[in-house]
């Protein structure tokens, strides 16, 4: 409600900026700030899921795929840059030697260019999402079908990557030295990465907000609630869905790209079925239909996982499991619903799918 007014919007963004850019760096140790940067990456993915699932009704159980694409694309650039810094142009990244690869694979070469890399991070996952989305939505695969299919996609993608020795296989890509010329080991630069992550989060939320308030946002809800009806009004419902799906993919990709320098590794273990479900859980727990719910949920889930596992290293999965069950079963609207005061009017229940 509050966010509906223009003043409210600016106040909200202002407060978030103060917390993210002022308070957090002041109060948190370098290590914790790094963790927060990592969690923020999850939150960026969550904003996209909130759009695709909360607004568009598409339960994308495979966001790990797009997250992974962005992450791997960025990681490829970082590995190339490291190799070139050490051994000059055309050098082979260190891990390839392990896999017995002596020649730089052709598809790696362009990634020595930062501009090319960033373009790919923005375009490749989005284009893939558009293609897949068209294939799936035009044929009206939806609901649980789509959910299961996207989950299988995440599984297949992870398996595919494990088999690619020229992308580090099971180990993935790690051991990055520099980020666009800056030494990653330097705490000052690590803080800079945090600021980048926080900035991207605010930008992504702003984009999502604009989409929600636009006519497109209304159309998306219409498609969610009565897809067939929308067709009879002359819209191609599939295109409407594809846009939200592609935006969600783009957000996930950007998140993955930021994640890599922050965390220092990307491997198939971070993008398969289970990580993809974790992305969803944050959104569900925060409240999928609201704008900030997914952000809060993603941060809360990641934080709770870390805190619980530090406290109870061998039994924390109980607590984690119970948390998911309790919140989703008892708070259908997620955490966000707690803050909604008494509804002014009868509002029909938000559609589940």
């Amino acid at each position, binding site marked *: 409600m509050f966010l509906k007014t223009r003043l409210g919007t600016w106040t909200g963004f202002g407060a978030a900026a103060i917390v993210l850019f002022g308070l957090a760096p002041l109060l948190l140790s370098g290590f914790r700030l790094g963790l927060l940067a*990592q969690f923020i990456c999850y939150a960026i993915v969550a904003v996209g899921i909130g759009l695709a699932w909360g607004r568009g009704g598409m339960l994308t159980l495979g966001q790990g795929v797009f997250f992974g694409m962005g992450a791997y694309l960025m990681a490829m650039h970082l590995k190339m840059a490291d190799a070139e810094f050490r051994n000059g142009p055309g050098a082979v990244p260190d891990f390839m030697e392990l896999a017995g690869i002596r020649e730089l694979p052709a598809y790696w070469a362009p990634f020595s260019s930062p501009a090319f890399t960033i373009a790919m991070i923005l375009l490749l996952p989005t284009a893939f999402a558009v293609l897949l989305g068209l294939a799936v939505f035009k044929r009206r695969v939806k609901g649980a079908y789509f959910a299961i299919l996207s989950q299988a996609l995440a599984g297949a993608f992870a398996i595919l990557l*494990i088999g690619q020795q020229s992308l580090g296989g099971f180990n993935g890509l790690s051991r990055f030295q520099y980020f666009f010329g800056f*030494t990653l080991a330097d705490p000052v630069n690590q803080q800079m990465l945090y600021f980048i992550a926080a900035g991207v989060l605010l930008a992504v939320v702003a984009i999502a907000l604009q989409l929600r308030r636009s006519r497109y946002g209304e159309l998306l809800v219409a498609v969610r609630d009565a897809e067939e009806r929308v067709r009879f009004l002359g819209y191609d419902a599939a295109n409407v869905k594809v846009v939200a799906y592609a935006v969600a993919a783009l957000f996930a990709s950007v998140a993955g790209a930021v994640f890599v320098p922050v965390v220092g590794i990307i491997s198939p273990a971070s993008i398969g079925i289970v990580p993809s479900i974790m992305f969803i859980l944050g959104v569900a727990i925060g409240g999928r239909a609201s704008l900030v719910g997914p952000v809060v949920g993603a941060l809360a889930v990641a934080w709770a996982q870390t805190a619980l*596992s530090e406290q109870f290293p061998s039994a924390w999965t109980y607590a984690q499991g119970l948390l998911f069950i309790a919140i989703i079963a008892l708070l259908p609207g997620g955490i966000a619903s707690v803050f909604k005061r008494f509804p002014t009017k009868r509002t029909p229940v938000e559609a589940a799918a």
Partner: protein
Amino acid sequence: ACGTRAGEETAATESCVDTSGDTVKVGSLNSLSGTMAISETTVRDAIALAVKEINAAGGVQGKTVEIVAEDGASEPTVFAEKAEKLIREDCVAAVFGGWTSASRKAMLPVFEDNDSLLYYPVQYEGLEASENIFYTGATTNQQIIPALDYLAETGVESIYLVGSDYVFPRTANAIINAYAEAHGIEVLGEDYVTLGSTEFSTIVNQVKSAGADAVFNTLNGDSNVAFFREYANVGLTAEDMPVMSVSIAEEEVGGIGVENIEGQLAAWNYYQTVDSPANTAFVEAFKAEYGADRVTSDPMEAAYTSVYLWAATVEKAGSFAVADVQAAADGVSFESPEGTVVIDGDTHHVTKTARIGEIRADGLLYTVWESEGPIEPDPFLEGYDWAAGLGDTE
């Protein structure tokens, strides 16, 4: 304000290890949840046992060792995160743990950037040597090459390779292929399955029709159960086509069912049945601590040993400081359950005795062949002509 750029020297992060009191903290970082928990919980137990014994004997430098345990959750990113937490928040003097190479590679930059120490206890694919890691499991020339030597000695002329699809099996098989070519052994097939896969009918049928003299098995974890059952069911036996495994230890035999695997071979540095006073003491202590039904295995022994090696190095250096420990490491030795192990200061690996074991009806492995004394570590296989080109990384 921007920080250091490429090429500039970065100021090393200050270590926060506090040795002023009468305790010193170490980290124990293993997967206690997720798919790898099945193996890694045993390593956690071995580390705890060693720490307990060391404390009972007066600690290190007179200080009681205190374990901070963390769960790596079978995810490399979590390993990296927890390692950093142990170093920067808990200020541990050293960390023990890790299993998959993926987890080690994820932790490596963390230990290097924060200039701290990791003791990694699992056999691995070699081709690595970090100043900040001590590798107490076997590298390839202490496990895979002896296993191949053994097969060659027993007259094997053709082999079939079956492995899980990740780095260790792939690297191992690259070495095996090079070895085979140099020694006139024919490789009849090379198959990979996804980690955790239980579907082996196609592969086993292909193995059977290929008719190799032996199978070299680099499967990891649960897949072994399905593989060996299928293997036995299509009528393949250890007599007509033995399987040499490098990831099956005492723990796994129980799950596979000894009836399915009896007579098959394994290559390790340690078995519970190794006959030495140090091992008798170790096995007894372990069973007393965790129950008579528990077994000991190679990674557990290496983890146990790694704690002692760290303690011995600290004593020798007279300091917990990373630089001092690194400087003092060369030549530090320990009378471990597998025999004497000595740290090689250049590579941070240790000398290890290679053993081929046979699985017997009681579910334990018995040494059928043993290297003549401990083998010097050679992670880059520099001492093997046929391996030229496999390991010239650095």
